[in-house]
């Protein structure tokens, strides 16, 4: 069981470096994909809701302390968004959930919720409008993140990363 948690943490380290160094080069008007979320959602689809929720919490914590952002913001947003993603988990449909476009849709939903929550928590300016928060800050990063789930859909074999 511990190995199940260790594996995504090991994937997290290079992915976090990519998220902080390479992803900023790919931003479009401050809209950036969240590679960490794709990883967490993938493992949630493999191992279930409770596993994913704990993983989201742990990786959110790690990402917060290494990114210099507000500690607790990613933790909370990852935990809640992955908890929601966990409802799509079905142990009999792991292949369908990870190797079809359903995975992209789950990542999109999760990414939008994550980005919306993160921004709502981190925001300290009352001038940000709710519509902007939902559409520009929530929906568009979710859409961009879902694009990065496509390689997993395309290349995932029946056994996945395992």
């Amino acid at each position: 069981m511990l190995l199940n948690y260790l594996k995504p943490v090991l994937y997290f380290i290079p992915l976090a470096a990519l998220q902080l160094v390479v992803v900023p080069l790919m931003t479009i008007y401050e809209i950036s994909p969240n590679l960490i979320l794709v990883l967490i959602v993938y493992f949630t689809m493999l191992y279930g809701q409770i596993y994913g929720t704990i993983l989201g919490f742990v990786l959110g914590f790690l990402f917060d302390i290494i990114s210099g952002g507000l500690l607790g913001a990613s933790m909370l947003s990852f935990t809640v968004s992955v908890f929601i993603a966990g409802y799509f988990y079905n142990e009999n449909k792991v292949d369908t959930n990870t190797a079809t476009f359903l995975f992209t849709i789950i990542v999109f939903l999760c990414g939008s919720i994550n980005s919306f929550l993160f921004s709502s928590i981190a925001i300290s300016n009352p001038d940000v409008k709710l519509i902007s928060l939902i559409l520009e800050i929530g929906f568009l990063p979710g859409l961009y993140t879902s694009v990065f789930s496509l390689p997993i859909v395309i290349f995932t074999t029946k056994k996945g990363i395992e």
Partner: protein
Amino acid sequence: MINSLRRFIYQFKEYFLVAILIIISLSLLSSNDKPGIKKLRTFALGNFAVLSEMVNSVTNIFTSEPSYSELKSENAKLMLELNRLRKKGLENNNLRSMLALEDTSKYKLIAADVISKLVNRIQGNFILNKGIKDNIKIGMPVIAPQGLVGIISEVTDNYSVAKMLFNSSLNIAVTLQRINVDGILSWNGRELIIKNIPTTYEIEIGDGVETSDFSSLFPPNIPIGIVSKKEEIALGLLHTLSVQPFADIRSLGNLFIVQIVPSIQINQLEMNLIK
């Protein structure tokens, strides 16, 4: 009773779990400034920044531009000098008799490379490759050759975190150069704005914006950008100004840290007054 409670908890275990994790996250959110948390962040940031720097050096092979750090440093110094002179020119026109104004001090610049960025619409941060060992302190302004970029918010031995202008938690006292009107510049998630400027002031699109003499965070006269749009609010009594920064903050790779912490100087002055 205990059995039924246990059964109830087991039945809704995922909800209990997520509730507990949310409570922990919220409690951490409210304790960001505690020394223990800061120490942990400094430790993690310092160690992970090494890896980020390695990835960054690989990335630079593909995205590198020739390093003209000395020229850029000179350019940044000249930019500050030019802005000071421009300001003096405007003052000279307005107040002809006041030719011998006190010169603002010259600041030492430390060149730094951006090794990673946290980019989103609300919180923009840079991680820079200069830290305590290079005499970097929290509160030091960060500039690019074109103008102000942000402020140092955290420092480790070898690295530092800078809050960029595109960060909703950063509010800066600014002055509109031509008419000498002060305001507060903030990031609203989409653009930099200055709110509540009375419409009685004749503000024009293209007016320069720089840090104010009243700023406790930044030294005065650092250029920030120009007014790109003005909107009337509150029955036409007030303006909200949009500001286009001079520096292309999204694509910056090399920056300069100005070795001054204005807030410390002000605090020291205030302490002297109290004494």
